[in-house]
């Protein structure tokens, strides 16, 4: 009987258990780990990763993927800062940046839904194309400082506090909650699951999957923009180079490690929270322990690998899952 309950452990639960174990370990071994200040710092530091994770989860649950989220985030918000520094009023600059993000998302959606280009290729190409063209045509520099918006409501988004809780955590929570409600309680949200589970069947039963795909990539672009605003207002600048970094793999990792399968149709926002928390606890604990950077990367990958191996052993692939095929 006990054997059966062990095999019921999903990847999400395995990761949750590892996270709790790490929290216990760090709490016992590090004096400054389990303090309110540190826990808030921990959450704040993964808030951007988490927000982008929510965007990625929406794409993956609908059997897509969006490799352009980081590029969208970087260039749209860098443009906002540049416009605003150049004298464009803040609300107008924000609206223009947001529109830019949505346009890129729209192109992604059209490429995937109507030209039927696989999401992984369409968004990979769009990420590079959008980054390159915006960088060449609209942006003067790679690094844009937040100057004009200092001391405004905009600056608050990434650096404010409510009752001592840093605003990035609140925004992450809000985005996660909205995405959760969207997926669980709206018709479009339920259709995303249907589409992810079996697009042809969904289409045969009358789900407008092309329009839904476009909506999906508009949503990821919109969320990416929010993540970018949080990032830029937290560190007073936007470094567009981040578009070429490994951040997008970290985002996919957070989603997959949390238990959302790459073959779509499964998972929830809770998986993203669990995955994000694991990465946050790991990075925070290792930084306090002052473990060298390279060693941190090794430890991080080993723990993630362990979680995947445990999942592979406990939840072996059956005929049905292998037929669906991963990306």
């Amino acid at each position, binding site marked *: 009987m006990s054997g059966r309950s062990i095999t019921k452990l999903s990847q999400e639960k395995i990761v949750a258990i590892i996270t709790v174990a790490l929290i216990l370990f760090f709490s016992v071994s590090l004096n*400054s780990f389990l303090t309110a200040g540190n826990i808030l710092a921990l959450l704040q530091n993964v808030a951007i990763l988490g927000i982008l994770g929510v965007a990625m989860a929406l794409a993956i649950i609908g059997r897509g993927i969006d490799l352009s989220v980081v590029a969208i985030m970087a260039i749209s918000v860098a443009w906002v800062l540049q416009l605003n520094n150049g004298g464009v009023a803040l609300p107008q600059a924000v609206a223009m940046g947001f529109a830019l993000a949505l346009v890129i998302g729209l192109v992604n959606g059209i490429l995937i839904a109507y030209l039927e280009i696989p999401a992984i290729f369409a968004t990979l190409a769009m990420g590079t194309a959008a980054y390159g063209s915006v960088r060449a045509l609209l942006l003067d520099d790679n690094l844009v400082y937040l100057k004009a918006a200092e001391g405004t409501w905009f600056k608050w988004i990434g650096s404010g506090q409510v009752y001592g809780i840093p605003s990035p955590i609140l925004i992450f929570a809000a985005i996660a909650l909205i995405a959760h409600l969207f997926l669980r309680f709206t018709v479009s949200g339920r259709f995303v699951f249907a589409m992810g589970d079996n697009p042809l069947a969904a289409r045969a039963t009358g789900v407008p999957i092309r329009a839904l795909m476009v909506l999906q990539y508009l949503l990821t672009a919109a969320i990416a923009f929010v993540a970018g605003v949080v990032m830029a207002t937290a*560190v007073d600048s936007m470094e567009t180079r981040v578009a070429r970094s490994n951040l997008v793999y970290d985002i996919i990792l957070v989603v997959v490690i949390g238990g959302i399968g790459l073959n779509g149709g499964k998972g929830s926002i809770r998986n993203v929270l669990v995955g994000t928390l694991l990465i946050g606890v790991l*990075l925070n604990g290792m930084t306090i322990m002052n473990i060298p*950077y390279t060693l941190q990367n090794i430890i991080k990958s080993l723990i993630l690998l362990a979680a995947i191996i445990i999942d592979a052993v406990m939840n072996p692939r059956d005929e049905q899952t292998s037929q669906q095929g991963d990306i």
Partner: protein
Amino acid sequence: MKHFVKGCAVAASIAIGALACAGSVSAAPDDGLINESAAALKGKKVAFVPIAMGFDLTEAWAAGLKLDAQRFGYELTIRDPNWSVDAGAQAISQLISEQPDVIVVHPPEIQAYSRLIQQANAAGIPVITVSLKADANGDVFVGPDWYDLAVKETESMVKMCGKDSGKSGKIAVMQGVLTNPTSQYGIQAIQDTLKNHPEIQIVSNQGADWDASKAHAIASTVIKANPDLCGFIGLWDNMDVGIAAAIKEAGKQGQIAVASSGGGNQVSGCDNIENGNFASYVSYDAKGQARDLMMAVRTILQNKPATPGEHTVGLYTPLKVITKDTMTADSCWKLDDVKKFGP
């Protein structure tokens, strides 16, 4: 007769033309060197492979080279690998086969391009390396002594956090890319300098990949874990603004000092001293480096080394420590001005 008149007219017009021509030449006298040195630059090919364009350092250097290219009529090609070490290596390989008269390389780390620099030299192409010292020397190096830079940063940190400061003496170090000379020589310098100051203790030593956002995350954790932290040594202004943001967020501006360094761009350097983000700043004056680089290129083009790579000229940039007390109106430079008016 008719032919004679016509011939005369032609001869006269040629003579007038020649006179006019001679007249315009005589307006700029030849001092015995100026024409010769300018002629040595005309029509030459200069190639520049930065780590990436679009940030203050490389934009300032490129502005200098563009100015000279226009003035002397040499052809300047910039191959921008946009932070990709692979793309940069490809660009250099490609350039070696194109045989320019000089290649200016901005190496992303110590080892990455060393072989390629040697290959270019072996193919008879002189190489100038700028800012980050590679293992292979090439023909000219223009850039800071990273050891000395970190010594200066550490010394200013010791002043703020050492004996008689009344502070805890706890400091943190934020590196960029670990294989970069700023870290390789910088960390050595920090450790050597601190040997004489046992009261200072490094409580955290991390790398943030030159990324302000990563630096912010690490700094906020370190600040929470060490409530009595006295200061951060950062190794590049563009990244260190992330540390400053974390300090401000924790409400500890003025209590935790940031010692930073960079190219002396107004917005990254002096503005941050002015607003209290950085307590001290070591500038390697990228505007001055741009001029050094222009002169190095001119020198190589006028006096091509017989065997490229055999001797190396080291043009180490003078360093300037800027604090609120030592800052003057021209301590820093503005990128827009350098782009418009040259270095």
